[in-house]
């Protein structure tokens, strides 16, 4: 019994006692597959979120892009259906399946009506466990992926991201795009795609959450039907830790565009670090909260240097970054960089004020319940919690953890999170007066 809406307004709960609770159940299927469930029977559909730890970082050496291509081809024919027959069947059910892959995780997001839940699950199971990977389907999807890669090569923000990753992570999979390159993707064979499937899908790396019009017992049956036939183990171990290799400095990538894009940052903090929550609040104040952040005030509100600037903590599985992004006209990028350096040094030196901390806390604690605003968002939150090892009652305790952070704690770590002498800027454009330097 996890009631977490209480954080919003006790007064309101008193007035409408039955409305505002969400109960997270842990379901174990007869076959032993675990999932978290929130039952929500008022709308006759279910959102199902399935994740596999690993993702595109499991690509074989020289086969960069194979896992991305595999995930994009899952729906292009399965069992005795080719791509067109599969799509017809899915449309007739009005179900949707989305397959995505990120560096650390492969995701399947499904949505289906209560009326035809069994058929929708049968069809999803075919795509997951019996994909055909027909050569013509692979070629068709490959052309689309190549088209995306070509577009990224002429997009300044993508160029900045790829450059930063390459400089920061070198030969580790984090150092290159999960889409692969024109060369690697062109060379991928059907065998590579089949091998990629075995690298990703194993019950040892599986996490599941469901929200919607389904009972715990029904979900247990569904889990076995959908997932029991997966291999017990994925075929390769998880990747090693990534070494951060970037020295402080500036890298300018010349690019013909009126406005420069800059990515900037340095080493970050792990998600399981005991100081993660203070660090998260610190980042909210510095560059996380839209118009309210320090960087937005200094660069946008006071000086009109940019339409947007933000920073984030990026705790990946095998490496961590503190990273930010800004765009400014070529003539003004130099001024933006100087200000970012100043603010980086100021927060490292002085930390934040009591008032900034209090405002961030009231924002974060008030905004947290508002994230749970639909079946799919709730399922995504639940599966994400499982993957980082948070307990089910974290939903209830999370705001208390935020409230408990003291100014002393947060200012003690400010110099550890923000290291002005470690900053590296990757600037793509023709920034006036800004040159590469280490």
């Amino acid at each position: 019994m996890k009631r977490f809406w209480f954080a919003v307004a006790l007064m309101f709960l008193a007035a409408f006692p039955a409305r505002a609770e969400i109960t997270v159940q842990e379901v174990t299927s007869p076959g032993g597959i675990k999932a978290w469930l929130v039952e929500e029977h008022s709308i006759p559909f279910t959102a199902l979120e399935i994740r596999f730890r690993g993702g595109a970082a499991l690509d074989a050496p020289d086969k960069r892009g194979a896992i991305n291509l595999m995930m994009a081809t899952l729906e292009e024919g399965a069992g005795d259906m080719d791509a067109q027959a599969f799509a017809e069947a899915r449309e007739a059910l009005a179900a949707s399946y989305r397959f995505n892959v990120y560096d650390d995780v492969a995701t399947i997001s499904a949505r289906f009506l209560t009326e035809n839940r069994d058929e929708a699950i049968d069809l999803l199971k075919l795509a997951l466990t019996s994909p055909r990977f027909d050569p013509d389907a692979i070629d068709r999807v490959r052309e689309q992926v190549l088209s995306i890669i070509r577009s990224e090569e002429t997009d300044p923000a993508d160029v900045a991201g790829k450059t930063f990753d390459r400089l920061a992570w070198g030969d580790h999979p984090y150092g290159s795009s999960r889409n692969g390159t024109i060369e690697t993707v062109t060379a991928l064979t059907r065998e590579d795609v089949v091998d990629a499937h075995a690298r990703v899908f194993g019950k040892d790396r599986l996490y599941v959450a469901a929200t919607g019009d389904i009972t715990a017992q029904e979900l247990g049956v569904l889990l076995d039907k959908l997932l029991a036939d997966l291999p017990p183990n994925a075929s390769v171990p998880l990747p090693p830790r990534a070494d951060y290799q970037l020295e402080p400095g500036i890298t300018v990538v010349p690019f013909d565009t009126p406005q420069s894009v800059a990515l900037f940052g340095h080493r970050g903090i792990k998600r399981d670090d005991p100081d993660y929550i203070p660090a998260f609040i610190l980042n909210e104040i510095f560059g996380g909260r839209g118009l309210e952040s320090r960087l937005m005030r200094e660069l946008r509100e006071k000086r009109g240097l940019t339409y947007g600037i933000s920073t984030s903590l990026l705790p990946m599985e095998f490496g961590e970054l503190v990273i930010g992004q800004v765009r400014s006209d070529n003539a003004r990028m130099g001024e933006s960089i100087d200000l970012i350096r100043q603010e980086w040094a100021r927060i490292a030196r002085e930390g934040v004020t009591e008032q900034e901390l209090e405002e961030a806390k009231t924002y974060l604690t008030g905004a947290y319940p508002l994230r749970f605003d639909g079946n799919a968002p709730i399922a995504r939150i639940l599966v994400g919690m499982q993957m980082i090892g948070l307990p089910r009652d974290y939903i209830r305790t999370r705001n208390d953890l935020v409230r408990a952070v003291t100014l002393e704690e947060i200012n003690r770590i400010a110099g550890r999170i923000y290291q002005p002498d470690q900053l590296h800027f990757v600037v793509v454009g023709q920034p006036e007066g800004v040159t590469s330097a280490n």
Partner: protein
Amino acid sequence: MKRLALAVMSTIGLAWPVLAAEVTTFRLDNGMDVVVLEDHRAPVVVHMVWYRVGAADEPPGKSGIAHFLEHLLFKGTDDLEAGELSAIVARNGGSDNAFTSWDYTAYFQRIAADRLELVMQMEADRMRDLRMTPEDVATERQVVLEERGQRVDSEPNALFREQKNAAQYLNHPYGIPVIGWRHEMEKLNRDDAFSFYRRYYAPNNAILVVAGDVQPDEVLELAKKHYGPLAPTPDLEPRARPQEPPQLAERRMTFTDARIAQPYITRSYLAPERDAGDQFAAARLEMLAAVLGGDAATSVLGRKLQFDQQKAIYVNASYDGMSLDDTTFGLVIVPTPGLPLEEAEAALDQAIAEFVEEGVDPEQFARIKMQLRAARIYEDDNIESLARDYGSGLTSGLTVEDIQAWPDILQSVTEQDVLDAAKEIFVRDRAVTGWAMPQAGDAQ
């Protein structure tokens, strides 16, 4: 086998109960419309004010003023410092933002339901009592210029779209970009903003949409208290923009930009929009776009050009009928690398011609209708998106009844209606065709 399953599903589909959110409407004495959508699953509310004014209502030479003013609405009032409204919303755990289109300007907050009055009080305050210092105006002009730099000047596809729109509309202001032409944006000033503001930001030109865990009578009481005392603009005339003359010749353009990674073609045709009490023509076009575009594996253009002939890596058809004045029906094709644009365009025309000969596949048509029925169930999970439908519909000249009737009108469209619509819309003399490519020689 599959056909049988489909027939069964359609029957079930027709029997589904209508679950749509409870909708209640009021009008305040000063002319402000109020729409309340109830969703009591979580104690959250979305509070929106939609003004019946957008970029297409700007005075000549002042392009971008509607959007610039939207930014300036965050610069304070007689009671609020610059940025204070957003700061108060954030301190209460909420989020806020605003957006501008050709037909509307909207402001919204999403917050715990018991804070509704707080945001309503602040939103009402800035409807009539805006203050802005010359310094704030000057800084914010730099911000919108940077926004144009980011969203348009750095995006060759956006530049191409801007040029195509300008060619589409010879006379109607839909041909002018919402964010504005740079040379005009640079000269926008405080007086421009204030005169636009004083005329159009008034209760009789606004629609309040409140969606979430609220009771309609409580919303009405709060609206009377906070918006009720505001003075209307007395001489506000109905919106009448310059309309398009008949198009007598196809317009073609070639756009080159080194940042375009691969050549592609867009084609657009001037098309009727959804009109109050008269949405059938738009419904036919919406169904036509679904038949031609949609999923590549099941749609007409996807099958012909991506699967059967492999002449395209991407192809689509699009139509959005939510518009105050005439809208467009669009086609796009990204050819397979190496295929000349001329051949790609011929293949696209050929595919359309074949479709008009062959007619609509009844199985595909039944699947589209099934998905539309299911969409009504899925969309009940997202009250905010429903609230946007009402806001954009009401500022585009539709009534609540029109918005509620739309799903049934879509279901009433037949295969023959779609075919008739195709024959009427695909007339080259009424088209704008654009080729986008990295450099001049790349078309061949």
